């Protein structure tokens, strides 16, 4: 069975969705267990995939058995980078699904099964995007995940959810179409859709083909819209803050990160880092834009009064981290980017889970409504604090190490502006989160003077979150710390793929120094 793992991840999720659709429509109670079971199975399988990749190297799975000549069928291709991202996706999916438990219980709506169907298909789409080795298949799965996320966002109760979803649809479609167009240019010039084959064809071409360059630009711009890179991020804050909590918990951590992953995949596997960094001298520009993205995201985050909006702008800044890291054109930048994809997914998940809990338990939308939260819900705040510390970059959380590697990459390649931007953004995050801590710690009406016996009294109506919300939050917090502590193992795994001679074969990323 082990050789079927790649397809099993998707099938488990697909059949979960189908089961919810066929049986869950009749009895809403089975939706949640089916969803969680499917996601847990997917998580188990993706663990199995990681295990196999570690033991055997790159997994190539030819759907329908069409393996020769490469490219007539569709290939699923998994190296350690996708295996890790896949694991991240399924884990985040499972945790956010557990968080959505109360949706079934409390929202007495007929739409619960629809929500879970879309949810499972979203995770399936994202997983499929990550493991596929075919450029067009990636587009189809991109649309699977986009359509589901449009719907999930539009399901929000807020009046503005629909408007946000509409602009997301427009921007998302432009992004996906640009990607499709880029793939079209690639296909026209290389005659294949298989990523590895495209790479071989590109390296076989003499000189720099302008069609390939245009293809690259279109694909990257399309992905930038999808990942909300700086000038193209306008759709993100509204879309992620007006959707239901259970949606934002899965969409916010995953969508942008998968976008970044696809960009990395394009740079590594499809175009090849040598081609990207040596033939195209875009590195300076892209890092410069990333610097602007980081600073702009941070500054705009400072200006927000709404919790979720603030997190959204932090995401914009974090995307800047990752894009900048990938374009540093050296080993540590790329390692940092891939590592940050994982750590940022969990940090964002932590933030949005906490925001969801605050909203549910206390109706908190704005930051200043968080007063006294440490006393009212200590466990939630504990989880939130861990996530916030990771965002700031305090060791031993994963946020520290991703910054460490990214800054190392920046220093080695001499992009000092990027280094400074990262540090400024860390400081801004520190300001942002300590503002929240302060409000949550002190409360609006401070306890004046000494001798106040408030230890066990004063339990207001706001209570600690339920178990179904706390468990994912605290698990996420633990994962954030574990990712930090075991970062070396992760980096080893990432490096294994970066050094994989088969596709990259480049001195650029193999760790023997950058391009200088």
């Amino acid at each position, binding site marked *: 069975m082990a050789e*079927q793992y790649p*397809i099993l991840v998707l*099938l488990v999720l*697909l*059949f979960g969705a*189908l089961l919810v*659709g*066929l049986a869950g*429509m009749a009895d809403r109670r089975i939706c949640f267990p089916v969803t969680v079971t499917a996601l847990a199975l997917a998580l188990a399988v993706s663990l199995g995939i990681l295990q196999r990749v570690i033991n055997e190297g790159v997994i190539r*799975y*030819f*759907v*329908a*058995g*069409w393996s020769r*000549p490469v*490219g*007539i*069928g*569709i290939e699923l291709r998994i190296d350690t980078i996708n295996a890790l991202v896949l694991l991240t996706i399924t884990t985040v999916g499972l945790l956010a699904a557990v968080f959505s438990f109360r949706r079934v219980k409390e929202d007495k*709506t*007929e*739409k619960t099964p*629809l*929500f879970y169907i*879309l949810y499972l*298909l979203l995770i*399936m*789409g994202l997983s*499929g995007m990550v493991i596929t080795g*075919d450029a*067009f*298949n990636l587009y*189809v*799965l991109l*649309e*699977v995940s986009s*359509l*589901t996320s*449009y*719907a999930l966002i*539009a*399901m929000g109760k807020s009046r503005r959810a629909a408007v946000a*979803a509409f602009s997301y649809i427009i921007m998302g479609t432009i992004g996906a179409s640009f990607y499709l*167009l880029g793939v079209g*240019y690639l*296909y*026209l*010039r*290389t*005659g*294949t*859709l298989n990523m590895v084959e495209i790479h071989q064809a590109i390296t076989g071409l003499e000189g720099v*083909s*302008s*069609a*390939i*360059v*245009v293809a690259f630009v*279109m694909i990257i711009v399309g992905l930038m819209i999808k990942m909300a890179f700086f000038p193209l991020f306008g759709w993100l804050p509204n879309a992620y803050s007006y959707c239901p909590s259970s949606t934002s918990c899965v969409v916010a951590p995953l969508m942008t990160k998968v976008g970044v992953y696809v960009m990395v995949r394009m740079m590594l596997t499809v175009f090849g880092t040598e081609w990207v960094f040596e033939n195209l001298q875009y590195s300076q520009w892209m890092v410069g834009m990333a610097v602007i993205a980081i600073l702009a995201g941070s500054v705009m985050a400072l200006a927000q009064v709404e919790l979720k909006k603030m997190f959204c702008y932090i995401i914009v800044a974090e995307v800047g981290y990752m894009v900048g890291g990938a374009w540093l054109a050296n080993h540590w930048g790329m390692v940092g980017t891939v590592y940050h994809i994982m750590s940022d997914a969990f940090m964002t998940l932590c933030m949005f889970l906490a925001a969801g809990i605050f909203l549910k338990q206390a109706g908190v939308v704005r930051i200043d409504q968080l007063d006294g939260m440490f006393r009212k819900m200590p466990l939630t705040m504990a989880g939130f604090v861990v996530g916030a510390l990771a965002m700031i970059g305090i060791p031993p959380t994963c946020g520290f190490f991703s910054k460490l590697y990214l800054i190392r990459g920046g220093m080695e390649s001499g992009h000092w502006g990027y280094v400074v931007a990262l540090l400024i953004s860390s400081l801004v995050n520190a300001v942002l989160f300590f503002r929240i801590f302060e409000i949550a710690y002190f409360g609006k009406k401070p306890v004046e003077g000494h001798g106040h016996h408030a230890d066990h009294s004063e339990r207001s109506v706001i209570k600690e979150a339920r178990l179904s919300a706390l468990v994912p939050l605290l698990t996420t917090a633990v994962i954030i710390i574990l990712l930090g502590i075991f970062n070396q193992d992760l980096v080893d795994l990432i490096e294994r793929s970066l050094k994989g001679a088969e596709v990259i074969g480049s001195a650029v990323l193999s760790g023997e120094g950058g391009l200088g």
Partner: protein
Amino acid sequence: MKWVGLIAVLFTGGLLLSAMDDFPKWGDAHSPANASPVSQYYIEKTIEDSGVPNMVTAVLADYRGYDTMFETVVVLIAGIAIMAILRVMNQIPGGARPSPRHEIGDHHDIIIGTTCRLLIPVLQLFALYVIAHGHHSPGGGFQGGVILGASFILTAIAQGLDPALERLPEKSYVKLAFAGVVIYSGFGVMCLLLGENFLDYGVLHVLLPGIDAAEARSHSMLGVEVGVAFTVSAIMFAIYANLASKGELEGGL
């Protein structure tokens, strides 16, 4: 906004056109895309592999069947998404909703009603033909499914949404849509269970005595197309029904 848009569009267009000199001549049979081993393989080996003359169908349902499965899923998602966004679920607990029943043809033009009554069976028959004959002529699950869905939409337009929904109620079309994807992925899973890769139909010949792998592929493609047609027809109708009635599934246009 207009100027920003214009500049962005002109920039994009200029970028796209800038690569024209690098393109193979239009209609060049030896361009990289057309002369690639992949596309030549499709043209040369389709018959050998599955005996299906329509290469598009073969590529769609067999070589790149994985894409097509997700395409079906996309259609399913569209339907589910529209229901999730738009559907107004105002069921009165414990009782059937009081719906103003329309008589068939009620306040609709008699000429249209009659024409449709004549046209719809033909349309549906043609849809089935398109689905079934996709191996040999243009057509297949998508086209047939859309035509089938269109026949229901025609019913709804000609006679009102309620009569159409009586023929194909919401519960049924949702089930139908899911059944389509189940059929498609079910073929894939059967291949898995028989020990081959997902969607490797060739192995299914062990289930059907008296045929070889190529024929098994051909038949499986037909099965898969039927699944696609189920989903597509159901969802096309679902989209129309929801959009035409603002999600209330009553009244309609």
